[in-house]
């Protein structure tokens, strides 16, 4: 496995092994705007590391271990580039915090899903493994997240999710592009609903596949931000409280990582 020189700043992520103080743990976000806030609410001494393109990074300490918080942008391709380079600078365990659209009728906005595997309906993971290769989460990290959620009595569901390259399949298409795909999406969503798939996101099947191929560990915690069957303009109507989201994550994730370190670290 390729290892970067300790002071080698990598091309896309913009940081080196030295800059993240040899950290092995990473928390991954898609949206750049949550990085600093999450970092500071986890650790008031959080340190800025680097910013380049969609990658903004901060370094925090959890249970005495260094943890990097990094945004990886929209979708699987920039996540994939990020994982390659983060692996080269020595990061080994990843918890991804993301957004997802519900597929099951009994899920609501704000619910938390812990994915133990995701359907590979994105292009990035195809370049890493044949399609019968599983996009499955790390057992150890996922169990630590479950244990943490149970301890703080945070409601959550564990199950299989789906990952796509489009924005979440739209049930009630109201514009040209979505309308072209509406029929196909409707069929897919109905099928997935019967197969007990919980929700759909834009990244994690690439993360899980790559980490399995590389012998690294990854897990994902998804926030339901919309229901893929509500009768409204799905994407632009999204509403959730950013404060609540940061509070939720900064309560759950450090405890999950601490439990992981105690059980398996």
């Amino acid at each position: 496995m390729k290892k970067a020189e300790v002071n080698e700043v990598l091309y896309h992520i913009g940081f080196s092994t030295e800059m993240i103080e040899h950290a092995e743990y990473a928390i991954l976000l898609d949206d750049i705007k949550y990085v600093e806030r999450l970092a500071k609410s986890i650790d008031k001494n959080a340190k800025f590391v680097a910013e380049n393109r969609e990658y903004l990074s901060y370094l925090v300490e959890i249970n005495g271990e260094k943890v990097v918080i990094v945004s990886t942008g929209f979708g699987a391709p920039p996540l994939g580039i990020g994982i390659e380079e983060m692996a080269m600078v020595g990061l080994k365990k990843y918890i991804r915090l993301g957004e997802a659209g519900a597929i099951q009728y009994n899920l609501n906005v704000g619910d938390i899903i812990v994915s133990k595997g995701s359907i590979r309906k994105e292009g990035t993971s195809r370049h890493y493994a044949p399609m019968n290769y599983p996009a499955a989460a790390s057992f150890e990290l996922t169990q630590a997240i479950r244990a943490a959620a149970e301890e703080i009595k945070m409601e959550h569901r564990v199950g299989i999710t789906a990952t796509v390259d489009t924005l979440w399949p739209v049930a009630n298409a109201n514009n040209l592009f979505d309308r072209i795909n509406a029929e196909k999406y409707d069929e897919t969503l109905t099928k997935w609903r019967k197969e007990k798939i919980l929700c759909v996101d834009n990244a994690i099947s690439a993360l899980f596949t790559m980490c399995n191929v590389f012998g690294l560990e990854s897990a994902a915690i998804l926030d339901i931000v919309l229901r893929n069957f509500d009768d409204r303009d799905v994407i632009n109507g999204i509403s959730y409280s950013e404060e609540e989201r940061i509070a939720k994550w900064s309560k759950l994730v450090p405890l999950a990582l601490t439990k992981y370190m105690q059980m398996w670290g």
Partner: protein
Amino acid sequence: MINEKQYLTQLSEEMVEGAKYAVLPGDPKRAKDLAFMLDPNAKFLAFNRQHGSYLADIQGCKVLIVSTGMGCPAISATTVELHKLGLQFFIRLGTSGTIREEIELGDICFTRAAIKLDGISREYIEEGFPAVASFSLTESFIKGAKSENIPCHLGLTASSDTFWPGQERHDNYSGYLIKELQGAMAEWQALNVANFEMEASALLALATVLDVKAACFCGIIAKRTASEVPSHEGKRLAQLHWEKTLKAGLIVDMKKRGFIK
């Protein structure tokens, strides 16, 4: 609603002021540089996620510059949003590695059509659906580049959802390529492909579906026959070349379509 903001770009119809041209680099810093290169009085519009947006004015004709972030999913989602706001002409501009000996570092490579090594085009079109550029829009930028004596090429582009395996780079973390991709570069060379990048196929195919015009040109920052790593000197030269090509090409196109005199 004229002031309704789109989810990802956080732009509204009101904010884009009737702009028809959208310039789409990947990098938010590049969006800013290009906007002020085109118009020293360019207006900052919004910054959300990896999308930095600016509005430039060329002789009264508005040009929207938005960074898409990397990859086909990001450029698709951005293009769908901008289409809803009335944008008609989409110009992707980026960096790329060439697999042809005669193309040099810093040269500009125009995409005539793209090979779909991406996932998103599977979602809305069949495998054989060709991702072809708007010839009229591409012609304007080739004319612009030639008027500035920029070394340029026109060819087929392979658009990959990955930077390493899909572009047959062997220096990735695992150092292993799945069998299907081993020797892919030699195959693309034999099939007359000029360069690799990560967005063209999605943009060009989507433009056909949306009935808008799209073109793509890249500055060559790696000669893949010699190296897997981007060159800094190549990048400096490429930037100079794509800036001149963009400005001259926009003016040629605006005149051709009667937007400016």
